[in-house]
């Protein structure tokens, strides 16, 4: 079940996007979200869609993988789209029942939300599929540096973040292993009512938490044994390097924004 989750997983490959600086990728992914909320017409969405597909093809990961990445979020998307559709405040009423009212504006908004959702998921998947979790954590640390001025514990937070990201796959594997061990002892996750299924979680969660706790203590000991001290500046092993391709990518995004603004205001 968990093995099907694509969003948030890293596929090591050698492509243009993989080789980009993590900072550029994080920044541009955030920029992408702002840009997409600027788009308000069909031509704009068409351009965004084509652009996004072009970017995914630059990652050397098949489009099929991205589409699979959208699947697990389908319920969230449907829910949001329906809310948009039924509770639009204004517009010409097309259909009416009890408190539900579908207006032309509501319908249009719903479609926009759907497209936005899909595009944003695709672009976030580009980020996580092409960037190792540790590189993302490094990039965030770098981008948060200005916050040091207001005494925000940037280094500690980024360390927490990288440890958390590092252990997500480990914990997933472990959950799978523990589930199997308990299944072999007769726990049945597939049958039974809701209460029985919730009860079946206890034999998974307890070993999972105790193991996570043990691992955290061991990691802490290992770090202290190697001289880690909180509050001390750290040198780094992986150094992020900004290349010409990163500048180029930023320019392309700038160009995209200009085109979209022109479309919005002049067409």
């Amino acid at each position, binding site marked *: 079940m968990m*093995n*099907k989750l*694509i969003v948030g*997983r890293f*596929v090591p490959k050698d492509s243009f996007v993989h080789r980009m600086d993590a900072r550029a990728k994080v920044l541009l992914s955030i920029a992408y979200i702002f840009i997409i909320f600027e788009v308000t017409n069909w031509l704009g969405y068409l351009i965004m869609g084509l652009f996004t597909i072009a970017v995914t093809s630059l990652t050397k*990961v*098949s489009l*099929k*993988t991205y589409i*699979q990445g959208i699947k697990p979020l389908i319920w969230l998307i449907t829910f949001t789209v329906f809310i948009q559709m039924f509770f639009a405040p204004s517009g010409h009423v097309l259909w009416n029942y009890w408190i539900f009212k579908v207006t032309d504006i509501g319908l249009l908004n719903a479609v926009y939300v759907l497209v936005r959702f899909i595009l944003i998921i695709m672009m976030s998947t580009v980020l996580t*599929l092409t960037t190792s979790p540790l590189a993302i954590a490094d990039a965030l640390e770098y981008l948060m540096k200005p916050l040091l001025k207001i005494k925000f514990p940037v280094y500690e937070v980024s360390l927490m973040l990288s440890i958390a990201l590092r252990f997500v796959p480990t914990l997933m594997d*472990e959950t799978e*292993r*523990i589930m*199997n*061990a*308990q*299944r*072999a*002892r*007769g*726990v*049945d996750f*597939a*049958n039974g009512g809701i209460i029985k299924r919730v009860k079946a979680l*206890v*034999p998974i969660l*307890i*070993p999972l938490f*105790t*193991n996570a706790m043990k691992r955290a203590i061991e990691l802490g000991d290992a770090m202290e044994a190697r001289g880690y001290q909180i509050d001390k500046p750290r040198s780094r092993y992986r150094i992020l390097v900004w290349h010409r391709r990163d500048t180029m990518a930023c320019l392309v995004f700038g160009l995209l924004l200009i085109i979209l603004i022109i479309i919005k205001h002049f067409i």
Partner: protein
Amino acid sequence: MGIKFESVSFTYQPQTPFAYQALENVSLEIPTNSYTALIGHTGSGKSTILQLLDGLLIPTEGLITVNDCRITPQTKQKTLATVRSQVGMVFQFPENQLFEQTVLADVMFGPLNFGKSKEAASRLAKEALRLVGLPDDLWQQSPFELSGGQMRRVAIAGVLALEPKILVLDEPTAGLDPKGRLEIMQMFAQLYQAKKLTVILVTHQMEDVLRYANNVIVMDTGKVVKTTTPLTLFADEKWLKQHQLATPKVIQFVQKMKQNGIELTALPTNVTELADLLMQKIKIEGDRQNDE
């Protein structure tokens, strides 16, 4: 009856970029009441086979029969409980599955799940705890306060309490001290004899293969490359070298003697047998010299 794999393939995370074919067209047969060792390099697919035959994974292709249960790619999760009730599975590092408040309650967990009454479960649990040699003053303690070796014993007891007819062991003694290892392996051997079990053992200890098993399956990168008996396997020095498998010490000893011109009448499976064979040899030699 018994266990049978017919052209079984298995792929982890199919249809994703992480897809990995762990088994390719595996056919094998494990007779009822045999003690089968499953060996091969790390990553060769041994644990995958074990999980398939316990119904924890469903094959991507092929057919698996465990006694009268059939598992095919179309089999639904819901029907697999019957398979699991016949197979007792000791996982790699089984102490990770402990969760109850007391040792006894943890061992009772399995039997209760498979529908035993409280009294029956408690009786089975106590029996199993005695078998693994856990002192009874520890039974009411929390399993998390035990040492690693004691936790391992509790976890193994948790499986034995199910009274399985098929016992599947995935490196059950990895990380134990030599004495603990011997005790646990002897216990399994006795259980195998006494209860007429079918035992499947995954191990990297060739000594254990030679000593306890009567059937060996060798895996290499997702395929079965040999099915034979331990003595035949370890007699073929060249094949073992090719597949980078170690030769047990007693066999190495016999081979060294042979190089020096001393031949024994049979191959030993453990040190005691080796000693007996040597005694015989000395006696024969002695008699011959006396005759001359």
